């Protein structure tokens, strides 16, 4: 029976082979897409999928790439590293994709990146901010790129904006200790703000999932900062802002792209007024790429695009642009074309630095009268 058991297991593996070996159609270029369509970050995965689909649709309407139509195979990674590794191997070995756009969560991209590297299939992660995705242990991952700016960048820009534009000299920061994104942002905000000549009067951590921040906020208010940096996601930001205002703080609040949600104002109301955050782009930006994208996306999906959809759209466009410039679907050639990218993306003109991070400016958005208003653009 033990033998029967392994035969059963093998039979299932073979069945898997048969089921997923669909007959290949006429010549098309297959691009993989990966995102967490189920699990805790499901809305992120869905936005990413929509961004990818829109980009592929536009390219196909223009005649595809290298004279062939593009086929997008979009897989769910469930926000799980093991599933991510499985999906990556499947796309490369099974679907024979020439490139991958994915994925959202850093830990999943970190499981996928070595696989892209091993097979020489280029990937662009639209939104994984962990620096190690593209550059690990002092070594560059040759085939791995990203379309979003990383934590150091947003923290740095936030600090610059607070120091130069808001004229703050004393700053406080609060962050989620269990989240590498918020922690990273706050640390880089602190370092840059001090380097600029400012003073950090309070640097407070809170636990993941906390709803009462009074202990940390009382300390912050007593230190009398000119500005408070809140690197959390919008739901926590709303709570923190409310409690901070209750404690009598009236100064400006600054944060990162985790603020970007229509729910921020709904949850935070008056408290988030006089709030500023760094973001990938602003919907109010008058550049044609931005206006064109917002119009098309809204028409197709019935809602305005969020940052994830925008970055996925950009990542897919950058990848397809590289393939068309490479004139080939060979991994090495696409990689070299990616390195030479200079693309007018929705989130700004994008090039890659020597660590495969995008070089682009950040938009500063202000919360004014319950609306997100474009304030300025800050380069690092």
């Amino acid at each position, binding site marked *: *029976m033990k033998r*029967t058991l*392994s035969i*059963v297991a093998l039979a299932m593996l073979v069945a898997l082979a048969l089921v*997923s070996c669909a007959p290949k159609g006429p010549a098309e270029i297959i691009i993989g897409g990966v995102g967490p369509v189920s699990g805790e970050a499901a809305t992120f995965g869905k936005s990413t999928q929509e961004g990818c689909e829109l980009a592929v649709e536009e390219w196909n309407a223009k005649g595809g790439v290298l004279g062939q139509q593009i086929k997008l195979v979009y897989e769910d990674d469930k926000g799980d*590293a*093991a599933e991510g590794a499985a999906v990556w191997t499947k796309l490369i070995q099974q679907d024979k994709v020439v490139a991958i756009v994915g994925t959202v969560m850093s*830990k999943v991209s*970190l499981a996928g990146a070595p696989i892209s590297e091993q097979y020489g299939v280029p990937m662009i992660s639209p939104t994984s901010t962990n620096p190690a995705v593209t550059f690990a*242990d002092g070594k560059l991952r040759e085939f791995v790129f990203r379309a979003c700016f990383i934590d150091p960048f947003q923290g740095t820009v936030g600090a610059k904006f607070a120091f130069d534009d808001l004229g703050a000299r004393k700053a406080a920061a609060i962050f989620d200790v269990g989240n590498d994104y918020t922690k990273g942002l706050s640390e880089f905000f602190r370092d840059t703000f001090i380097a600029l000549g400012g003073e950090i009067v309070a640097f407070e951590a809170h636990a993941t999932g906390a709803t009462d921040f009074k202990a940390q906020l009382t300390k912050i208010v007593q230190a009398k900062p000119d500005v408070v940096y809140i690197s959390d996601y919008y739901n926590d930001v709303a709570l923190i802002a409310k409690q901070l205002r209750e404690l009598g703080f009236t100064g400006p609040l600054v944060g990162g792209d985790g603020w970007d949600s229509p729910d921020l104002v709904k949850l935070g109301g008056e408290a988030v007024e006089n709030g500023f955050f760094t973001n990938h782009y602003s919907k109010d930006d008058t550049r044609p790429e931005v206006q064109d994208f917002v119009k098309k996306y809204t028409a197709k999906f019935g809602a305005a695009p969020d940052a994830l959809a925008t970055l996925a759209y950009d990542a897919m466009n950058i990848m397809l642009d590289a393939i068309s410039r490479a004139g080939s679907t060979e991994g090495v050639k696409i990689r070299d074309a990616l390195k030479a990218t200079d693309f007018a993306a929705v989130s700004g003109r994008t090039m890659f630095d020597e660590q495969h991070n995008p070089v682009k400016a950040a938009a500063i958005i202000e919360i004014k009268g319950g609306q997100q208003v474009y304030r300025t653009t800050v380069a690092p």
Partner: protein
Amino acid sequence: MKIPRTPWLLVVAAGFWAVVQLLRLVGFNDYYLFIANLSLVYVILAVSLNLINGIIGQFSLGHMGFAAVGAYVSGSITTLIYKLSPNVAAHYPGFVLALVAGGVAAALVGVAIGFPTLRLKGDYLAIVTLGFGEIIRTIFNNIDAVGGPRGLLGIPKFSTFTVILAFALITVAVIRNIAESAHGRNMIAIRENELAADLVGIDTTGYKVKVFALGAFFAGVGGGLYAHLLQIAHPTQFGFIYSVQVLIMVYAGGVGSLTGSVLAAFALTILTQVLKSFLSWLKAVTDLPIGGDWYMVVYALLLILIMLYRTEGLMGTREAKLMVIPEEDEK
């Protein structure tokens, strides 16, 4: 004459290895190999949890906590030696030692939490182990030396099919031999009626602590293999939901049946992969209103059906027996 079972296990494992190597030549690509590897890691985790939940009947909900200890300890060791000299082949002995070290560390943690908590019964133990699993995860989340919330990165990819299969074989052989020994009978007695077992002179708490340590050891080894397969150890990969995933394998396979755990680990891992392609194919062929994105719904539905119609799991408490072995030999 009774044929010892361990050689048979060895034959089966060797046969499995040989078949996979043969299939590699005819289109059994790295994706299938990855699924086979992942299944084998789950075999180790499920069988070791079955020792705790099935054989001795203590409801543990924090199995991935032990796996996390093993993953981080072995991962830290191999990352360090890999940095010193990146010659992969030379590090296999070191890798095996690192896995064992991870297992030992997990076992120590198992003993440490076993002593105070194993006097608890049923639901109370479940809640304590649940809390423990989360504590371990949170501790790793807060240690910057192992990456904190960024996770332990740069773990070399040492978990090959052969290594994982060898450890799965060892795990199943050891736990099976224990379960079938006199000690195993004592454990089953504890599971069936702890008070009665105590009355006939079985050291119930002693057994429970030892079993907890042993289960934790193999979970630690499994966690180490998991980290070296994915090349990352991340706190959220060892959360409650992952412990539940292993628990589902144990219960779907049959509590108390090691064969069931092995079977379920393979079946459920492969099922999540196959379902999506299968549903998409079915939709294309039969105009079914649901497509590939419904695969998690169907997966959950199948689990509910198993629990409704086979409450005891696929295998119940039965073990697979090879036909050449007589059922029960009278001594």
